């Protein structure tokens, strides 16, 4: 994000770049976070065994979790930045709905999740639905 965006209403490219930054950062963040939580195991069971402190320690000692949080923080600040330049009615639905599809792709490739036809259909339906609802 080196390009200085024009002040009043961003053009198509600037708007797309802002939304793409939110989508890419949040997809990377969610994939890393999901990988971290899978490597840690069921948090409810850890909490039952070694308490809340044990669960927090298990999460905070996982390097993948910090990679995930860094990307999610980046996504959060790019969302704040975009919200200051564009309407919520464009930024939120566009980034939320696109993230569903990019996550389905990333989940299949990087997390090796079983994204069957049912999950693809759900990702696409919810993607269009979120866009229509929040627009």
């Amino acid at each position: 994000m080196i390009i200085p965006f024009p002040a009043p209403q961003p053009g198509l490219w600037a708007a797309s770049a802002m939304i793409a930054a939110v989508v890419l950062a949040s997809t990377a963040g969610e994939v890393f976070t999901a990988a971290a939580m899978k490597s840690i195991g069921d948090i409810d069971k850890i909490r039952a065994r070694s308490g809340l402190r044990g669960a927090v320690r298990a999460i905070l000692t996982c390097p993948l979790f910090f990679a995930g949080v860094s990307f999610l923080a980046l996504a959060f600040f790019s969302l704040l930045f975009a919200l200051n330049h564009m309407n919520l009615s464009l930024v939120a639905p566009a980034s939320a709905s696109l993230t569903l599809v990019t996550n389905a792709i990333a989940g299949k490739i990087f997390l090796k999740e079983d994204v069957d036809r049912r999950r693809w259909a759900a990702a696409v339906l919810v993607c269009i639905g979120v866009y229509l609802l929040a627009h």
Partner: protein
Amino acid sequence: MAHARLTPRQYLILGLVSLCAPLGDTCLSRGMTGLPEITLAHPTSLFSAVFTPWIALGIALLIGFFASYLTALSWADLTFVLPATASGYVILALSARFFLHEAISPERWAGIVLITIGVSFVARGPSLTERTPARPQPPADLSNAAKEQLR
């Protein structure tokens, strides 16, 4: 696939994920639109935005979202959690309709229907991808060990 069934507590966590995220986003938007323009020339103004009331409330809700989201990801797939928790948008729209008497346009009704169908699709499927060296292994090992002891 009996082990893929979610417990009521797990449904509650998915519910928290669904509700805290859209509510938090709404608070953030309300906070950000009230602020003067933030430019790349003064990026530090973005950090001071964090301490305004609506944004602080939004962040508190998003922390609640994150805690329940992490818990959900520890026992369910990302590609299950994300579509399944989109129902929060529907709940938010319907509560605006019934409690705040806001009108819902045909476009939004179409969105509500699509999300509901999408959520019902994932909710019928397994919540976690089956992996061969996964959790079902230990009980099998134990029972084998027990069998060998019996021999």
